[in-house]
């Protein structure tokens, strides 16, 4: 396996260097007299810890050295038929670079190499591959693809069809490295309906035959599995931390099994200048819900970390629960909010919401009230945001500021069925503790200078429930249309929660789990095409 990873790493480096000296690859070709567009990018990033002292859950100095190579080809077979494919290779060189680093070994980061050094699963390398046929008012797309729903950024509300890869945490990763394309059949129909109020209409149906079940690639527990982004879940009262878990009996639907089939339906239209969609989804959660495999022995393994603290390793079992919802999205610009003083640009309102039936939660981490059971609650989610461009002349004479606040609300239960109130704590598939009302807000601000070549931006995510925050400050500079440079910082803060509340044990949560992972990052991107 190591030899394979080494070969892939070397191959990736060679291809990257080769493409960089051969920019003529960036053009349209004719194959059988039909156009083929070849394009892609290569990035080399590095992350450096800003931690003030040595801690078990972070590594001082270099933390990541991620290379991404992305190549895509778009081939128009005929006026109505085309083929698209993209291939991706991700290599984190920090593993070979720190191979002999004692700190890296002591903190067990080296053991996460198998998960995070080279992405060599076929579905990671073959990113997308699909045929698209567009006869008349129809569209059919078959193959490994992304179907993206929703209006908001950063929050995944409506966008539930494709799984996500969040193993590399909050690091600066591209969209192509985050959303995982899966094998889908997508069909759309656009009836030529015209009325005074309806300007456009489309009907979309997506079927997931579960050709290959690919779940969310979540951040793993424990340095030995999750690497540098493993969350620091602490049990201060017993001076221990939660380590990697053994996942037994987490049943994945088999290939083409009916149990893995998913159905997504959407009607979309432009109604009085508003983009409106009505959505329905019936399928599976992309992450498993877990409980302890043996409630009498929930932590079958205990090890000692290099800082002397105990690491307790849970033994989990679980399933990918049913997930079904109906919802809608809307997007419109709000003309009456246009202000001359701010530059006369109307903000755009983006909204998405759904009602989910019988979502599954676990009480496994609720101490001492855990029944180690699953329970179903209905759930309501709502997210809305504004995109607003405003003129702030003292700060930028030439361009506007883009300001985008968003609010994300989850209400668990309390409709016709039970709600999560009471002494028991309920956790979702990400082991995030859920109250009845859960709020998260975000704010994104950016602007451009130097003929839109320099783009500084600021992003802030606030978890209302746990009083914790994530900040990303970043500046990108497009030196040419091939080269881009990015410099930024990721900062986390969180309230240290009491270890106990109402006789219930509380672990820390949310961004507090990443409090020691502040980092500065730098990335070079070479694009062609």
């Amino acid at each position, binding site marked *: 396996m190591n030899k394979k990873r080494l070969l892939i790493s070397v191959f990736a480096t060679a291809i990257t260097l080769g493409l960089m000296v051969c920019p003529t690859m*960036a053009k*349209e*070709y*004719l194959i059988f007299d039909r*156009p083929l*567009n070849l394009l*892609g*990018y290569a990035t080399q990033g590095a992350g450096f810890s800003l931690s003030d002292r040595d801690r078990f859950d972070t590594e001082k100095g270099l933390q990541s050295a991620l290379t991404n190579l992305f190549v895509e080809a778009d081939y128009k077979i005929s*006026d109505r038929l085309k083929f698209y494919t993209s291939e991706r290779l991700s290599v984190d060189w920090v593993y070979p670079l720190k191979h002999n680093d004692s700190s890296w070994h002591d903190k067990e980061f080296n053991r996460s190499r198998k998960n995070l050094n080279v992405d060599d699963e076929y579905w990671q390398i073959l990113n997308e591959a699909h045929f698209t046929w567009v006869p*008349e*008012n*129809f*569209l059919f797309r078959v193959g490994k693809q*992304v*179907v*993206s*729903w929703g*209006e908001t*950024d950063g929050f995944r509300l409506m966008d539930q069809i494709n799984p996500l890869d969040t193993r590399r945490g909050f690091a600066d990763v591209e*969209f192509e490295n985050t959303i995982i394309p899966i094998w889908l059949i997508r069909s*759309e129909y*656009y009836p030529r309906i*015209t*009325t005074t109020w309806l*300007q*456009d209409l*489309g009907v979309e*149906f997506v079927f997931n035959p579960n050709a290959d079940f690919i779940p969310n690639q979540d951040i793993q527990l424990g340095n030995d599995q999750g690497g540098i982004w493993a969350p620091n879940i602490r049990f201060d009262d017993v001076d221990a931390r939660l380590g990697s878990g053994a996942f037994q009996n987490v049943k994945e639907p088999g290939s083409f099994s*009916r149990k893995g089939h998913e*159905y997504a*339906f959407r009607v979309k239209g*432009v109604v009085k*200048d508003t*983009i409106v969609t009505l959505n329905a989804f*019936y399928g599976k959660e992309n992450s498993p819900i877990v409980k302890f495999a043996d409630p009498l022995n929930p932590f079958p393994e205990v090890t000692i970390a290099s800082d002397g603290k105990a690491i307790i390793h849970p033994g989990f079992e679980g399933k990918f629960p049913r997930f079904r919802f109906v919802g809608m999205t809307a*997007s419109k*610009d709000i*003309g009456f909010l*246009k202000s*001359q003083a701010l*530059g*006369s*640009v*109307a*903000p*755009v309102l*983006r909204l998405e919401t759904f009602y989910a039936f019988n979502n599954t939660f676990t009480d496994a981490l609720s101490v001492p009230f855990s029944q180690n059971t699953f329970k179903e609650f209905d759930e309501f989610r709502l997210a809305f945001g504004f995109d607003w461009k405003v*003129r702030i002349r003292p700060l930028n004479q*030439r361009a*506007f500021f883009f300001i985008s606040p968003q609010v994300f609300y989850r209400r668990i239960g309390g409709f016709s069925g039970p709600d999560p109130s009471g002494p028991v704590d309920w956790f979702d598939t990400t082991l995030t503790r859920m109250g009845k009302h859960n709020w998260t807000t975000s704010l994104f601000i950016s602007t451009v200078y*130097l*003929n*839109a*070549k320099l783009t500084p931006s600021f992003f802030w995510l606030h978890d209302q429930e746990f009083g914790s925050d994530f900040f990303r400050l970043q500046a990108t500079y*497009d*030196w*040419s*249309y091939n080269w881009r440079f990015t410099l930024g910082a990721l900062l986390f803060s969180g309230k240290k929660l009491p270890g106990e509340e109402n006789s219930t044990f509380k672990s820390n949560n949310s961004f507090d789990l990443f409090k020691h992972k502040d980092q500065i990052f730098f990335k070079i991107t070479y*694009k062609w*095409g």
Partner: protein
Amino acid sequence: MNIVKRFLAGFLLIFFSLLLMTSVGSAQKYELGFEKLEDYKKPIDDPAPFYKNIEGFKKIMPADVYKKVTYDVDAMKKAWAEVVGFKAPDVVGKIAPEIKPGKYTYKDKEKFPFDKIMWKHLYDRFNAPASSGPRHVCNFTEIEIVPTRQYYHSLPVIEATKKHMDTATQDTQGYLLQESYKAGFPFPRPSGPFKAMQIMYNWDKSYNLDGEFYWEHVYGYTKDLRNDYEGMATAYTMRLQGRVKWEPLNWLDKRAQDQRESKVFQYMSFAPRDLFGNVINVTSYMDPNKFDLFLMYINSLRRIRRLSASDTQDPAVGQDMIYEDWQGFNQKLTPKRFPYRYDVIGEGEFLVPITWDGSPYMSTKEGYILKNLQFERRPMWVVQMTQMDRNYIYGKRVFYVDKEILYHVHIENHDQKGRLYRTYDTLWGFIPEMGTYNQFHTLALDHVDTHSTAYHSYSYPALWLNRGDVSMSGMIKMK
């Protein structure tokens, strides 16, 4: 689950039934890709005569389509002269008559008063390129002056203009009463107290990109002439109201009529890589106070987003123009948002580059100069639009407009401090058999940050286009 299965089966059955029932016959599509178009002429460093090579697009259009969009040249000449009331060759030659047709270099500026028949910016560009210091691209060192030619528009446009002459009316402030406009150029003989506005309304209602496939290759340069941007894009453009050239005439369809839509363009980026697959769809309305419907398919997000149509003042990525500079001038003429004062500040004749054979090109090996330029004396208006709202990015815009063609050739945009901020120069390409024009070479310059953007573009009639191609479904299909 059984219900879901039945639903799935039923849905697929309906889908395929509709597919079978749908008419198979559709217009033949003769859309060329970059590789094929650039076989006729590369965007830079290529003196090939594009229009000659492509025979005025005859080579790439089906014969029956070509026949539909070409007309008797003499008939167009005669009819257009009747509409505008003159022929350009008859009204020029009065200023600096010693500058006769022939070949000149920039050194001849010492001998001849070119400053009398070139606006200052053009005169300054008629020079050897600087070898150091902040500079722009697209100077030119030699020109050929040809005898002034008569220009015209396509016969259906001329006939519509003639038919509806004097029907378009303006309110007491000079703004066009939109319902009074039917088709053609609304004011082919601008005059009276609102002459300047009439000149601008001719551009506003022009038939430039009125149902065409458009292709562009864009190069951006820093002040030391480093190429920092390269863009490639195609677009579908359609006129939805006042259609005169081919069916459907008048309104495109009932939706256009009900919604009072005037035009739509759908623009797909192929380069740079960040923008590959992005599709912009903009529908404009007859009512200038109604904002455009601005949709964008963002390929990196795989989503269609609604963008604010009032967000029109930020520069396009890597380029030296804003949304309201598209095609030179794309701003709505309305008293309610960034109104102007309109004045005709000059009339005269100027040397203007226009190409019939498509041989001009930018030579990157000779200092990024333009070559194979043919100039001719043209009768022009100079229109100044003074911005009344200090919050707008431009304080003043000055247009040099051809009196016979009714299109602008040079635009100067000044910022609120009165500095020359951006200029926009169009080297029009003329297709005489069609009576249509391409923005063959466009130069957008930023004079404050000293940055240049050079556009090389063509467009030709796309009779296969229908509503489906320029709506939400068209956006998805383009990707």
